[in-house]
């Protein structure tokens, strides 16, 4: 099974489980989803529940909010985070705000899924990693499934959340293969996970960069450095406890983030660790992020712009000295 299929299974389960759930977005139906996530679901559930929209990001995201207010449980797909700019007013000013602004009267049980990340030579307008940006907004829950299990398990609890949840699927993960247990539905969506235990340094990653972190940990093991790899999973709220507990043991931390360095989620994680664990740290928290350039098309340039396993390992070595 692939990550893509795990996501599809999660959508199918939700549609079967609650008739208020429907999927809406550009080309989710007849085309099968721009990354084929929803392939076949139109035939299974029909055009009312697998709903192709015109190219009107603001209107269909806003319609998702309205439908949630009206008692439905919409899953809105925005093809990629790059196009979510066009719906940002609806996400920030409405979805994230209505509950508070109405004094607790109107909650917005909406799930928005979108693809994020680079690595497929799609160049400057299709390669953003802006999930970190969204973590700035109170009222949103932000999830980043990095494993098949999370792709399969995060959607249902996200739908159970009475408030808006954004799920960021890193495009390079869709073809990732793996096994899933038979009874997979529902995972905890509030905590980080230790993907590899270690003692000398904590490498904190999420989404598409977990693989680079794990690869770096392998390399480092060869160098006699035992790296613990944390997958944040929930980007807002952050699971501070898990992060602090690990850093409390290892006394060193590197944050890996596919976002541009300045103002990225990695900055927040770094600042929090320093605030909380300053006197426990043996070295400053390091960050490995994307180069601050609009993503170039050429493969060698794109590779150079993205955080690679070797960059993570190198950052750990610098800390270790």
């Amino acid at each position, binding site marked *: 099974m692939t990550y893509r299929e795990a996501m599809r299974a999660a959508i199918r389960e939700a549609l079967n*489980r*609650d008739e*208020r*759930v*429907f999927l809406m977005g550009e080309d989710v139906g007849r085309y099968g989803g721009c990354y084929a996530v929803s392939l076949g679901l139109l035939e299974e559930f*029909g*055009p*009312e529940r697998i*709903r192709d*929209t*015109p190219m*009107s990001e*603001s*209107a*269909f*995201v*806003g*319609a*998702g*909010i*309205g*439908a*949630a*207010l*009206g*008692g*439905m*449980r*919409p899953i809105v797909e925005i093809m990629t985070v790059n196009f979510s700019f066009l719906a940002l*007013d*609806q996400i920030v*000013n*409405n979805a994230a705000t*209505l*509950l*508070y*602004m*109405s*004094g*607790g*009267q*109107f*909650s917005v*049980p909406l799930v928005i899924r979108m693809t994020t990340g680079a690595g497929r030579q799609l160049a400057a307008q299709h390669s953003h990693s802006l999930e970190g940006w969204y973590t700035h907004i*109170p*009222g949103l*829950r932000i999830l980043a499934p990095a494993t098949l299990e999370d792709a399969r398990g995060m959607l*249902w*609890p996200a*739908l*159970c*959340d*009475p*408030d808006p949840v954004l799920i960021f699927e890193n495009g390079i993960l869709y073809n990732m293969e793996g096994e899933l247990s038979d009874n997979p539905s*529902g995972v905890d969506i509030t905590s980080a996970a230790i993907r590899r235990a270690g003692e000398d340094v904590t490498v904190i990653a999420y989404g598409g960069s977990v693989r680079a972190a794990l690869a770096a940990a392998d390399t480092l093991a060869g160098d006699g450095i035992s790296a613990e790899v944390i997958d944040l999973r929930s980007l807002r709220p952050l699971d501070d406890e898990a992060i602090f507990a690990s850093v409390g043991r290892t006394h060193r931390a590197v944050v890996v983030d596919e976002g541009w360095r300045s103002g990225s989620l990695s900055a927040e994680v770094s600042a929090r660790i320093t605030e909380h664990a300053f006197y426990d740290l043996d070295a400053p928290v390091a960050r490995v992020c994307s180069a601050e350039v609009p993503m170039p098309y050429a493969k060698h340039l794109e590779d150079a712009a993205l955080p690679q396993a070797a960059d993570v390992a190198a950052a750990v070595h610098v800390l270790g000295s």
Partner: protein
Amino acid sequence: MTPRARKTAVPDRPIAQPGRAADASPDAPATSPVRPPVTRKAPKDGSAGTAKDHERHLLHQMLRIRHFEERCVELYSASAIRGFLHLGIGEEACAVGLVEALSPEDAVVSTYREHGHALARGISMRSVMAELEGKLEGTCRGRGGSMHIFDAATRFFGGNAIVGGGLPLAVGLALADQLQDRRRVTACIFGDGAVAEGEFHESMNLAALWHLPVLFCCENNLYAMGTALARAQSETDLSLKASSYRVPAWAVDGMDVLAVDAAARHAASAVRDGGGPHFLELRTYRYRAHSMYDPDLYRDKAEIERWRARDPIPALTEALSAAGALGEEERERMEEEVAAEIEDAVAFAEAGTLEDVAELGRFVTSERGPEGTPCLP
């Protein structure tokens, strides 16, 4: 019942062509409004009473709104109300005519200029005034203020202060009704300025494409802040614009509450009966500045005066009097009732409490799932 199947129910062309006779340009206030081809059904559904009862009720509602807002001006001067305050003085016929035409199960999505809609909708004047004064007893615990009145009991979904931002919400509310086979109307109110926003375009298309039960109501008061309609739109006939989405659209004299009432009833029942979205352009005017900050430099005093001459409140008052349906005594009693209600609301607001600062972080997220949230076992 796919959207496509539903779509075939829409007539090929708008069922009524947009009115071109009405001229609501700044220089010539509308005098011969276009009315939809319906006979006026006066009594509110279910209520007994005569047509004149209904008209007196409309007058009463307009008076409540007018005097409430006049009182707001004083309270603003006294610093009891702060922030942005947008008044609909002059536009009461739109608020009353439209909202009175809706049923309780319908929804209203409005703008930051929404006091009138809120009051007409039946939200208590007390809680509206308390909201304006930032009190816990307000509709939104004092967190919203004038621009953000919300009320779940009357399905009043704001109070939206991003121009155009309410339109997609309304589309979604209507989609929920369609998907759940509920015969409800979502009335979506916005100004002429909003028509230039991309969200107008996207929402009109989506509602029409999916044949959704939205009643789009454009309160065309000829200005968006200081920008006259003709400086904002290449096509100033907004009903014509609406009909380019294959949405049936009319222009209505927004200074005549009976005209608005009739048009809104007709349109709302068409929407309710599965006729898809409809669009009403209510041609109106605001007598006061855009907000309390606005020096109002962009309009001619004479223009304002011409529109004042068509004030919907004296117009209906006189019509009722002339028809012998409103005696001087009754009129005075109405004014007194309104004054008393306002004083009561102000007293209520003044006596209101401030939310505990410790509650600042409440409702950023829900405290528990709303009734019926799907939940893991």
